[in-house]
């Protein structure tokens, strides 16, 4: 009996979470178009369904019915696999994010997370590194100078933002003494870590924007100098896969930020202790807020020049996050 439970509960959780993620990725495109439009004092999509709510569906139908073109000089295998790598990396990132407390369902204790990994923070960083492969391989296999430059930028950019990101997260790890996301969320009952680690939060925010290829750091796909960067040679469903991966990544990155710095489902504990569903709702609200902030930033700030971004990462963010780490360590040592 117990193996049935052990097998089916994670499977059902995984399937539900993947479906929700897919839907949220599709609707993130809708949200971005709609919210960006409002920032530019226009309506955005409003023809397909009420408020344009069927627009993602229409886009999906269009992408499916498009001809699948593989350009003649590409590295076929990698060209086809690359969007899948991007997409899979985004989906498995969510596996370690707790989106609610442990609940009783049908007499079983069910944790509202997929995998309870004790090193889940490291897992996040590892998968974030893996996600860059989708972009790099896609750009390289396209055999096109713009794609290659986009891939090159993605690789170089990844190295420069991962370092301050890791250092910013180290401050969090120092405070918690743990790299488990569940523990990090549980510790934020009274104060979210963004309050305790404001500088770490800002550095992390910049890094996560760069990780999701979000404006103002969407340098691998700058359409003004690189057309669409690594996506230039992609069309039809393969392009749609990249596109959905990018927007799902936005949602997942929002979830990561909400979990690590905004207290996940836990903060404020006064509310989340009432009912598990309140916790889930808090988590979703924070994810929505972060998605809105990402879109808000995109609607407001112009893209950073590539070399300036590199300089900013290496000469400002890395020293800043190191200082933050040192200061955190000193404060913790004095308090202990």
């Amino acid at each position, binding site marked *: 009996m117990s193996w049935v439970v052990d097998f089916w509960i994670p499977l059902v959780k995984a399937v539900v979470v993947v479906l929700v993620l897919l839907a949220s990725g599709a609707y993130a495109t809708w949200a971005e178009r709609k*919210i960006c*439009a*409002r*920032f*530019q*004092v*226009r*309506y955005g999509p409003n023809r397909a369904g009420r408020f344009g709510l069927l627009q993602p569906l229409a886009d999906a139908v269009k992408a499916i019915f498009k001809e699948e073109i593989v350009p003649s000089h590409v590295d076929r295998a990698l060209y086809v696999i690359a969007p899948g790598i991007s997409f899979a990396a985004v989906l498995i990132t969510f596996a370690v994010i707790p989106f609610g407390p442990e609940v009783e369902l049908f007499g079983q204790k069910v944790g509202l997370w997929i995998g309870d990994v004790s090193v889940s923070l490291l897992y996040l960083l590892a998968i974030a590194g893996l996600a860059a492969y989708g972009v790099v391989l896609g750009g390289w296999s396209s055999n096109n100078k713009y794609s290659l430059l986009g891939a090159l930028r993605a690789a170089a950019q990844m190295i420069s933002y991962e370092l301050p990101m890791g250092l910013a997260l180290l401050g969090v790890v120092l405070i918690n003494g743990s790299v488990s996301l569940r523990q990090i969320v549980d510790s934020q009952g009274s104060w979210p870590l963004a309050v305790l680690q404001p500088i770490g939060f*800002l550095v992390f925010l910049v890094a996560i924007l760069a990780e999701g290829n979000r404006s103002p750091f969407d340098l691998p796909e700058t359409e003004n100098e690189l057309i669409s960067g690594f996506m230039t040679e992609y069309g039809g469903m393969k392009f749609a896969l990249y596109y959905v991966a990018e927007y799902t990544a936005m949602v997942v990155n929002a979830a990561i930020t909400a979990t690590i710095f905004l207290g996940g489902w836990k903060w404020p504990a006064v509310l989340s202790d009432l009912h598990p569903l309140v916790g889930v709702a808090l988590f979703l609200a924070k994810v929505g807020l972060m998605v809105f902030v990402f879109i*808000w*930033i995109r*609607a*407001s*700030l112009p893209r950073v020049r590539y070399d300036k971004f590199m300089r900013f990462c290496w000469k*400002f963010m890395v020293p800043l996050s190191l200082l933050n780490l040192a200061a955190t360590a000193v404060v913790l040592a004095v308090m202990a």
Partner: protein
Amino acid sequence: MIRDAITGLYHLLRAMGVTLRYFFTRPVTVQYPDERVQLYPRFRGRHELRKYEEGPNIGLERCIGCALCAAYCPTQCIYVQAAENKDGVKRSPGERYAEIYEINLLRCMFCGYCEEACPTGAIVLKREFALADYSRQSLIFTQDRLLQPTDPHAVTLDDQK
């Protein structure tokens, strides 16, 4: 450098505040086919050949076939062929009338010079602007079509303003 960072952050936040203010304003979009659009008072749309609606020449065409519009037209999109008013057939008050009058709307740039050149006020640019069609042939407007009053599908909220 630290002061730069702080002022930079401050200005970033201020910029985002500006955009956020726009987020809460009403969109300026006019939902065109559903809503009427406001045209400017001197907007120039499709041409119309007018007839006399009152006075001694009522019912006659204003155009006397002088072809000044065709001469003045910068894109030469107007073709006029005049004929004599004789044998009791009188289409215009003058000696001659326009036997053939065609405007190629694909060439026309709606400058309104024809309207300026016309001595009798026969050709005027009205407010119809939704002129898309499926064939080039049908966009060469012949005299009978030009004589029909324009039909603005979507007109101004206040035409006289």
